């Protein structure tokens, strides 16, 4: 019987309580630790050939009959008022079939609050015709003074949400107890996701149903949002995303482009594509906002933290959310006295969007650099300082962790950390070498609801059906592995059908490192349901008890030694099919489900030019059971590489006077290239979380990007003594920090 319970759900660090229906069937035990027949063993991506050969059809590749192309007129000003707008000249342009302006669609505005805010759009029979028509729209702008300084915004009360204050214990008393207090101001820059496939949708009316083909991380979220906005029954919106070209957090919602495509499709009666250009992508598709962090830490001489204090400013932009930059300070260490204050400034800058561990990437940079400054003052080994302040239970709400193996991560980091004398000794000429480390905490437990079906035909092959999306993380492959393991089938006999809300059950968002921990248990439950049915059939056919039968290597195996190919059993059914159904169960009650890890970086710094080279990064993470070691390694490496970009090269630059975005192209916005990649050593603990679902797997998308910046900057300090407080570490910032370190050394050397 189904039972209704209340459970906690977390996405990107935001918790909500929700009702969930739990199956009363007996719970499925986790598989033993270590590789199984398929799970825990490296598997190439199931869709690797399709993607590599260019056969995979992304939203960008879709060409529906009669499809029109939209182009969007975006505000060239950070803040302006549209005094007059006339779409008529654009409507009359060759090839143009539709146009919309402020008032026609809720996302179009006549009071744009950021450079790139959508004002009007046209639909034409080619992208070129649509772009040409934009120039014909007659607009009279009144340019207004933009608000760009986040601290000024906070003084003026221009906030995205209310100020957040957090207190644990008494920070004042904690600082009074401290033998050493360190403080620092840390700043992180705005970075842009820049997924290779830009944000885009193709929308078409089919009878009373709206079809939305979209590059998205959340098929069902798009369905629900669009249905609610249009006042349609949910299943009259069909959302399709079979292949998508990256998201990194920016593709969780419908965005302006989807609503523009819908409006123009409604107006013209034709399918409409609205695809952002790369320049629009750098203006109006979200970003990781910049932060200012004023931090203090107090400790006793033995390293015990007595107090932590942080004042966090998120320069959110015109819209978005104020992320948990304070999170690491509150959660990472066993410190009884913590005070944080956090504000999100509403500014005339492009809205932010979740970006791979939002808040924690920024907050870990500040906190973990401060910890190294503390270690230096205490003359304590930085790894030892972290070990001494290890949290055995969650300090925010006192709950135990469902599992935590951070000390084991620290232990495995020791050999990498112990190389530092050898690395430092490589210094030569103007090059200085050093090693740094940083710890990591994040969510990643996923949660219900999520559903999967497993269909088995008479040929003994299985298809996993669920309307999830694979955003490039390899979840399609991981789901097939889980089903294959449960069904005792070789991987090549399992397929996965996903990507269409009309062709499968509800599935989790692919954000917050949640796809595997949310979807995996549902897939396993569905496969177990199908396996049970096969065994029931085999038991009846061969007059055996069900309990002596199991599935292995594509066969139904009896404890007495007999065995039959699965297809011989399912073959009895002819065209009948076995359908297994599975649902994600609740998260463990009263526990905190989190991920942990540490990274150790080797860097080289040219003290004359300020050039920084990352030579090596060792990453050790505790994310529960690993489903596919091959894909998991790729996730970690990719996260580190994005972290290197965040640390050294990427920055969205804005004209400080006008608020217009200067870095709109991929030559101005510097993404890492293959030539920027250091040696990487990836170690995943692969210890199942015994309390978490039937799998014990947590998510892996976000943890690897979190500690990278702090590990690199701490290595820079180890190499040179320079204290970098601002990202990215441009040569200018590096040379400034080196000069400051030289001044400091001079003062210290001077006789008192």
């Amino acid at each position, binding site marked *: 019987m189904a039972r209704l319970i209340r459970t906690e759900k977390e996405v990107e660090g935001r918790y909500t309580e929700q009702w969930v229906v739990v199956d009363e069937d007996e719970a499925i035990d986790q598989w033993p630790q270590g590789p199984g027949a398929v799970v825990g063993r490296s598997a190439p991506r199931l869709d690797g050939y399709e993607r590599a050969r*260019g056969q995979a059809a992304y939203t960008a590749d879709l060409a529906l009959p009669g499809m029109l192309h939209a182009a969007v007129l975006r505000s060239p000003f950070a803040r302006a008022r549209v005094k007059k707008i006339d779409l008529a000249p654009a409507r009359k342009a060759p090839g143009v079939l539709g146009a919309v302006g402020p008032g026609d669609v809720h996302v179009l505005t006549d009071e744009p609050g950021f450079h790139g805010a959508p004002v009007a759009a046209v639909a034409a029979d080619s992208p070129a015709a649509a772009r040409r028509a934009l120039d014909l729209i007659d607009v009279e702008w009144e340019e207004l003074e933009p608000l760009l300084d986040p601290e000024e915004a906070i003084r003026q009360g221009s906030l995205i949400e209310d100020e957040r204050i957090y207190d644990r214990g008494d920070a004042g008393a904690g600082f009074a107890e401290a033998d050493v207090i360190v403080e620092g101001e840390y700043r992180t820059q705005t970075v842009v996701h820049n997924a290779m496939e830009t944000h885009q949708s193709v929308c078409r009316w089919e009878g009373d149903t709206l079809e939305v083909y979209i590059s998205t991380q959340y098929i069902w979220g798009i369905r629900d949002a669009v249905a609610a906005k249009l006042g349609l029954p949910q299943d009259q919106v069909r959302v399709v995303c079979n292949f998508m070209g990256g998201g990194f957090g920016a593709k969780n919602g419908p965005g302006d482009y989807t609503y523009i495509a819908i409006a123009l499709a409604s107006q013209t009666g034709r399918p409409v594509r609205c695809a952002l250009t790369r320049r629009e992508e750098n203006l109006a598709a979200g970003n990781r906002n910049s932060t200012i962090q004023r931090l203090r830490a107090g400790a006793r001489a033995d390293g015990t933290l007595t107090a932590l204090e942080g004042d966090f400013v998120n320069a959110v932009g015109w819209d978005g959310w104020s992320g948990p930059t304070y999170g690491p300070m509150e959660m990472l260490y066993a410190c009884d006295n913590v005070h944080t204050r956090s504000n999100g400034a509403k500014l005339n800058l492009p809205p932010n969007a979740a970006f791979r561990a939002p808040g924690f990437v920024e907050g870990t940079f500040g906190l973990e650099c401060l910890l190294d400054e503390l270690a230096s003052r205490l003359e304590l080994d930085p790894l030892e300082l972290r070990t001494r302040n290890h949290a055995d239970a969650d300090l925010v709400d006192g709950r135990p962790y469902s599992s935590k193996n951070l000390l084991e991560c620290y232990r495995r980091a020791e050999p990498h950390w112990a190389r530092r004398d050898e690395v430092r000794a490589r210094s030569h000429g103007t090059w200085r070498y050093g090693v740094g480390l940083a710890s990591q905490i994040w969510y990643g437990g996923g949660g219900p609801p999520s559903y999967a079906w497993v269909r088995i035909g008479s040929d003994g092959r299985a298809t996993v059906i669920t309307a999830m999306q694979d955003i490039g993380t390899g979840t399609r492959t991981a789901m097939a592995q889980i089903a294959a393991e449960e069904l005792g089938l070789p991987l090549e006999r399992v397929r996965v059908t996903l990507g269409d809300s009309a062709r499968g059950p509800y599935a989790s968002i692919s954000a917050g490192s949640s796809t595997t921990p949310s979807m995996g248990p549902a897939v396993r439950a569905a496969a177990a349901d199908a396996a049970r049915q096969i065994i029931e059939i085999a038991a009846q056919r061969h007059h055996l008890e069900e309990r002596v039968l199991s599935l292995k290597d594509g066969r139904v195996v009896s404890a007495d030694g007999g065995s039959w190919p699965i297809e011989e059993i399912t073959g009895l059914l002819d065209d009948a099919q076995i359908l297994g159904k599975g649902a994600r169960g609740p998260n463990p009650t009263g526990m905190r489900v989190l991920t942990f890890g540490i990274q150790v970086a080797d860097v080289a710094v040219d003290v004359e030019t300020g050039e920084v080279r990352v030579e090596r990064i060792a990453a050790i993470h505790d994310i529960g059971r690993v489903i596919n070691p091959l894909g998991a390694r790729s996730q970690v490496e990719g996260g580190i590489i994005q972290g290197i970009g965040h640390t050294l090269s990427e920055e969205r630059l804005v004209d400080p006077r006008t608020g217009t975005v200067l870095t709109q192209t991929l030559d101005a916005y510097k993404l890492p290239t*293959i030539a920027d990649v250091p040696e990487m050593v990836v170690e995943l603990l692969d210890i199942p979380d015994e309390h978490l679902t039937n799998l014990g797997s947590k998510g892996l998308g976000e943890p690897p990007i979190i500690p990278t910046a702090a590990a690199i900057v701490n290595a820079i300090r180890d190499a040179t003594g320079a204290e970098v407080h601002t990202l990215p570490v441009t040569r200018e910032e590096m040379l400034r920090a080196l000069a400051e370190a030289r001044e400091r050394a001079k003062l210290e050397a001077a006789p008192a």
Partner: protein
Amino acid sequence: MAIDLKVNGVVQQVDPPVGRTLAESLREDLGLTGTKVACGEGHCGACTVQLDGLPVLSCITLVHTVGDREVTTIEGLRDHPLIDAFVRTDALQCGFCTPGQIVSAAALVAAEPEPSVERVRHAMAGNLCRCGAYPRIEEAVLTWRD
């Protein structure tokens, strides 16, 4: 103006408007959507195709300038050993940049069957991958004949 385009060994007539890029012609006139356009201004390498074996950015190449040169796209490299190498080494994540990566790599290994790490990094530095599959791309190109 109608022109003959030699693509993957087949001559096809197309009639693109003046100003159309090779990428647009391949994708829209010929339906060869394996060639991706990610920036549209020659900065990312996703649209890479070969002209007479040399890697070229098709999003900033006007189709009318191609002339007699032989165009090779990812569709013409479907059986190239690099495809297996990319899949085997997990050299792709979202896969959107992958066709361009493989087209670039194929030009490299055709000229230099055993490229050094430095050569691979040099030749592939113009192909951006936001997912960061770079270490595996390097491995795939270095081991393409395995």
